[in-house]
């Protein structure tokens, strides 16, 4: 079976500390599409997000992940990022002392220059984006997310509010311009205003050049981001897929009917 989707997940089995979480998951996401992945707590949504990005804690025991036609299972997280994959974290990690601007310029420059230092002790990425050009870019993207300019000088996620962290994730996405972005419960912990700003940001970025996989527990965010496809995940597998109306059905009927359907299938 061949596919022209940028992200192809085939029969993916993933375990953590010997316990199988994903049990044969199939999913395809193309550039220009928005997919929503929904499911109850513990269904394996975050495991999928972390596995796609290459978190060392998660072990792929079967199946494959293809990105632009190549398996990425052997690739380090930084290689996957440079290839065009992005994960907006559910719980972004604080790096005290590292400013948002410095971090983003370094991350951006990994795409413009060789990644590693050359052993001479010289600062890497000397050839990257010019400081002036970068400042302009950052200013533009921060404007898009209605962020104050002082944000660039703050330490990454250090003392950020929940909303600031999520906005910072979208800012990173805006600067790095991935081909496929995975958003892991980006809506959780956001008040309605922050949710709208984040959703506006995603909508502005989504388009022919980027595919998005929105992972969410609630369909609240889907009032602002209109998915082309909705998938429901239960017990490590995608159980049901459909159009945007599927999210509405979940909202009114909950996840129980999907579970029931699964039991019927299994019996």
């Amino acid at each position, binding site marked *: 079976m061949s596919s022209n989707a940028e992200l192809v997940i085939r029969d993916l089995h993933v375990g953590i500390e010997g316990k199988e979480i994903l049990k044969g998951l199939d999913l395809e996401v193309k550039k220009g599409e928005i997919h929503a992945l929904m499911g109850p707590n513990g269904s394996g949504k975050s495991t999928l997000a972390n596995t796609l990005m290459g978190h060392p804690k998660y072990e792929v025991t079967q199946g494959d992940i293809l990105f632009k036609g190549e398996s990425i299972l052997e690739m*380090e997280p930084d290689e996957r990022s440079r290839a065009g994959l992005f994960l907006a*974290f559910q719980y972004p990690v604080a*790096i005290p002392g590292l400013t948002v601007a410095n971090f983003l310029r370094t991350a951006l420059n990994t795409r413009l220059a060789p990644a590693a230092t050359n052993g001479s002790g010289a600062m890497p990425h000397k050839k990257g984006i010019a400081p002036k050009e970068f400042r302009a870019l950052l200013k533009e993207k921060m404007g898009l997310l209605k962020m104050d300019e002082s944000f660039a000088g703050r330490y990454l996620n250090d003392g950020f509010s929940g909303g600031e962290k999520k906005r910072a994730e979208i800012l990173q996405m805006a600067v790095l311009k991935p081909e496929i972005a995975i958003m892991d419960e980006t809506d959780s912990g956001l008040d309605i205003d922050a949710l709208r700003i984040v959703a506006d940001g995603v909508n502005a970025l989504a388009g022919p050049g980027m595919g998005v996989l929105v992972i969410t527990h609630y369909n609240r965010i889907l009032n602002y981001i209109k998915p082309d496809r909705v998938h429901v995940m239960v017990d490590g597998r995608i159980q049901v897929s459909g159009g945007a109306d599927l999210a509405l059905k979940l909202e009114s009927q909950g996840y129980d009917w999907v579970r029931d359907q699964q039991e019927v299938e299994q019996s």
Partner: protein
Amino acid sequence: MSTESANLDLREGYTEKYGFHDAEQSVFKSRRGLDKDVVAQISDMKGEPVWMKNYRLKALEIFEKKPMPTWGPDLSVIDFQNIFYYVKPTSEEFKSWDDVPADMKRTFDKLGIPEAEQKFLSGVGAQYDSEVVYHKIQEKLEKLGVLFLSCDQGLKEHEALFKQYFGTVIPSTDNKFAALNSAVWSGGSFIYVPKGVHVDVPLQAYFRINTKDMGQFERTLIIVDEGAFVHYVEGCTAPTYSSDSLHSAVVEIIVKAGARCRYTTIQNWSNNVYNLVTKRAVAYRNATMEWVDGNLGSKITQKYPSVYMMEPGAHGEILSIAFAGKGQHQDAGGKVIHCAPNTSSKIISKSISKDGGRAGYRGLVKVQKGAVDSRSTVNCDALILDERSRSDTYPYMEIEEDRVTIGHEATVSKIGDEQLFYLQSRGIDKEEAAAMIVSGFIEPIVKELPMEYAVEMNRLIQLQMEGSVG
């Protein structure tokens, strides 16, 4: 990359950039070892007044009597009789780089000293082995009466001023290595900033060891007169030799009423140098003394810059960074001694250890009887990069007054897998991600450095971190 191969690579960058050495070309070299004759010879060669010669000889006796300190890192392997105590590189000190012998000039060029002087310094002193070979201060500062000389020239040209302060802050009886320095000192800086004069741009001294098995014993004396300001920066490197060298300096600073002195060190000795230094300042009424002490190199460093706050309103500050890699032991920290009421102090220490290195904070907060309403805060944070490395904290407190405010916080942390994953997920490779986390850890201190040195410090950290994450 395995951690083992990373260890082998660690100082490779150092060897290329700093660890090279010139052919030996000294105009005079004392014989190996130390005794009265060697000390007298050093004094005679320098043509010193009799009082200094006697001071040296007395200090030698003190050195010989004092036992080796045993409360810190193991120093028992230092063989005092295998060291060259005085290596005179040139027949004189020069005021123009063009006059400095080509080899030495090339070395300092490689280290970027003349370039830095052009760009952002008020004055530069460059010491090569035992003597300062180049010294220059901007004319406008000279006209204001600012003195910036080698310590030897200070004694020669301003004997009365020199004698008034020399050995008053750190007497030769202070400790074994202060005694040793007092006996064989050579080079270092002598600085006097007259009342009310602000030296806005830093003065810098650079110390370079070239000769194998040598000891460098520079002596620095800084007097900042009332209401004046100076920022003094020192840097140091040495060739990577298989046998050990000894660097044992003494730095005395007098900060008079309302004056401020900042003393910044970026210590980057090669990993075969024992760096045993005594640094102390006295601060008078409303004066401020700040030590910014970065220790990246050396085999063993023992250094605890201290501030004695002698009169009300005095303020002391010590910002310390210690980085210990394979085979390194950094025993750094600071001491603040509140001798008068209403004095304040702050110590911030950041230590990083990796590849089996050992970095620690050893510090003292002392409030003497009568120093009421004194305030002191101490923050020491340690970052340990792998299981084989070690961090120690020895925070001593001697508080003899009740009405004081003392704060102490200490943290120990490791680079988290989640932090690495997060940075990697943005395209940054693991090694650089770790370096960024380390740079962030020391950022509160690095941001206190002048821009050029902040860049240098980050570059050095980057160098130290190369090949560090498997």
